[in-house]
């Protein structure tokens, strides 16, 4: 009797273990959950090829990775939602599977891993340039969208596709344009009798006045190094000239040229004077905005994409409509044309090269619905993001938001635009700039040593090409 009981217990235990093993097997498999889905849709695809009408209603999903999460991105998310809805209506059976991932996580962790494994989403948020779109395009992971935009007749509408173009083929489409410059708190400036800086002296004077009054001149959150690098990029554009940004990889400019080192030195000087938020190395990008919104800092160097926050009372509170924007003034003794501004057409959507016919149809409809005058204008009016496509003067005249107007005015008055070096240098060089800027901020390196360290990596990269 007892023996039988033991046997029964042992059997039960064995079942339990087996069941548990199955359980973990399943949960471990969620990551690869796209596999069966893809297999399904692939068989769906072959069906569609064989018998068009019958397969049309058959449901299929297309994964779509976006970065429009959080309060500050809500306008952009609304536009995406409308495009998704419209596209789903147009393609029978199509459901988009939206996957919102924070920008930095997507760009630097998730997407690279997926690209390596060969299972990126079908449509995904993508940055242009040497470290992102062009690298993936070279590896054959991205869909060449040239035929699609030619068919839709929008190829010539784009203002700048350079960061997505490899050997004449387009591998991604920028959703908007941006420039990086200073936002400032008009209320604080008025209280302290500071006027919008137009010259370098006025800018530094403004910073000094703010500092004297116990207010941080520049809000900063440099836990993620790309945030301080925005300002560094424009400082390089000013001190070493707009050509320097492209020049590092071309070999015409060096990171340890005296002019580039001067840009680092200016940054270091401001750090030493206490012009940036204290404890910045522990603060995220979002916290930089909070510092600025709470009135703890008078200025903030950020991209023009931030402007929609300042017209939204839910986010900006008392600062709604009381924020100004200006481009970095010319620096004394700076090389090259000092009227250039930073201009990026780098963030947009890319499409997986691994797809079937129906997914291609979905991609096409998505591009048609996302990249048109209506959505571009909505992006400009609702989200304050500069269009990446040419808009008619009538459309542009609809802009009422003073901040966006100012940004557009700065762009049109500029002698030209230089991009961000994150899209022009190879990723190992970019990685080094991230490490070095944080060292500079914490006082562990000097501007000259920083330039030398960066040039060493750049030399190795240039030799490799």
């Amino acid at each position, binding site marked *: 009797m007892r023996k039988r009981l033991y046997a029964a217990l042992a059997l039960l235990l064995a079942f339990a273990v087996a069941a548990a093993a199955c359980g973990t097997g399943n949960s471990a498999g969620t990551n690869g959950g796209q596999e069966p889905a893809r297999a399904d849709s692939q068989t769906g695809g072959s069906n569609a090829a064989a018998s068009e009408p019958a397969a049309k209603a058959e449901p299929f999903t297309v994964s779509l990775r976006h970065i429009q999460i959080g309060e500050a991105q809500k306008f952009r998310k609304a536009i995406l939602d409308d495009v998704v809805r419209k596209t789903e209506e147009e393609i029978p059976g199509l459901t988009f599977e939206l996957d919102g991932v924070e920008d930095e996580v997507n760009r*630097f*962790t998730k997407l*690279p*891993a997926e*690209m*390596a*494994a060969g299972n990126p989403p079908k449509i995904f948020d993508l940055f242009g340039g040497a*470290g992102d779109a062009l*690298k*993936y395009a*070279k*590896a054959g*992971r991205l869909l060449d969208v040239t035929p699609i935009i030619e068919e839709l007749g929008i190829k010539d509408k784009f203002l700048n596709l350079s960061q997505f173009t490899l050997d004449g083929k387009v591998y991604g489409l920028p959703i908007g344009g941006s420039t990086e410059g200073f936002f400032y708190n008009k209320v604080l400036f008025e209280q302290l009798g500071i006027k919008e800086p137009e010259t370098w002296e006025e800018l530094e004077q403004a910073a000094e006045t703010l500092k004297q009054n116990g207010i941080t001149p520049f809000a900063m959150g440099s*836990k993620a190094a790309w945030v301080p690098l925005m300002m560094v990029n424009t400082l390089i554009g000013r001190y070493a000239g707009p050509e320097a940004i492209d020049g590092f990889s071309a070999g015409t400019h060096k990171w340890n040229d005296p002019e580039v080192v001067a840009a680092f030195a200016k940054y270091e000087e401001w750090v030493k004077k206490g012009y940036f938020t*204290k*404890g*910045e*190395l*522990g*603060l995220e990008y979002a916290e930089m905005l909070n510092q600025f919104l709470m009135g703890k800092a008078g200025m903030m160097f950020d991209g023009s994409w931030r402007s929609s926050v300042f017209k939204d009372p839910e986010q900006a509170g008392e600062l709604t409509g009381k924020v100004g924007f200006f481009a970095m003034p010319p620096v004394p003794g700076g090389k090259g044309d000092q009227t250039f501004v930073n201009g990026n057409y780098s963030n947009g959507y890319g499409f997986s090269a691994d797809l079937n016919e129906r997914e291609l149809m979905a991609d096409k409809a998505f591009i048609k619905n996302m990249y048109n005058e209506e959505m571009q204008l909505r992006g400009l009016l609702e989200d304050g993001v500069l269009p990446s496509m040419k808009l008619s003067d009538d459309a542009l005249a609809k802009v009422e938001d003073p901040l966006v107007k100012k940004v557009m005015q700065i762009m049109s008055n500029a002698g030209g635009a230089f991009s961000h070096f994150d899209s022009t240098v*190879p*990723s*190992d060089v*970019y*990685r080094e700039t*991230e*490490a070095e800027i*944080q*060292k500079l*901020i*914490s006082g*562990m390196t000097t501007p000259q040593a920083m330039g030398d360290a960066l040039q060493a990596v750049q030399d190795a990269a240039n030799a490799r090409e």
Partner: protein
Amino acid sequence: MRTALTSPVAYALFVLPTILLYGLFFLWPMLSSSFYAFTDWNGLEDYRFVGFDNFLRALRDERFHTAIVNNLAFIGFSVFVQIPLIVLMAMLISSVARLQRFYKTAVFVPSILSTSVIGILWGFLYEPEMGAINRLLGFFGIEPIYWLADPDWALLAVLITNAWQWMGFYIVLILAAILAVPRHLHEAAAIDGAGGLRRALSITLPLIRPVISVVVLLSIAGAMRVVDIVLVMTKGGPVGATEVMASYLVNKALGVDPNYGFGTAISLIIFAFALLLTSLYQLVFGHNRDEGIEYA
């Protein structure tokens, strides 16, 4: 049945499935991926053989040196700060008459929380301007400390959080050992006139030594592979101040400019370190096993 067990063939038959599975799911993947440590594979493009370059690069990188030192700091902190505290706490709880269960549960709670939750909670506590810790210090007139942003303080902040997370688990382990010490030993000692401290040092401590040695071993192993708390709280920053070997591996293998070849090389180095440390520990303290009561 009996005769079957004496035949080596039968043994082999029984052991073979396990060895096959072990080989298929552990040895083969490990060996086959070790191969990438000698390449510059980035996951996307074709790789080239680079020989021992990856290893040399890692061993020459200052940031990796910091990571090794920080791993040693984790080990040092857990062995020389955490464990004495753990033993002390366990002894205190063991001699409490009322609410012992409550204390046991209370100290154990942190170890059932997820590391991400703990990292974020302590992030609030360490917040420089509004965080509880700085407010408390401010009460005594101490200037705010930028815990997670200051390279001088960040490691300590992470160490404290990590200790808080794991101490409860070990306290419960040691507590069980203390409660298993036969009561009559204490009674006899008390009759001989031994006070509380004397009994703790001469009876409890020697008798729970085997468990302490297990806890030390677990702490060392835990400190060698610590990474989650670092990634959640600081991502290895500021400026590499809290980088440990495993977070260095994550930051280099993934992220901007991923390099799986380099990552594999680092993981082999970590493996070598762990092997070295545990065998060192076995050599020095291994003989403990023969003495005392076997609890683990």
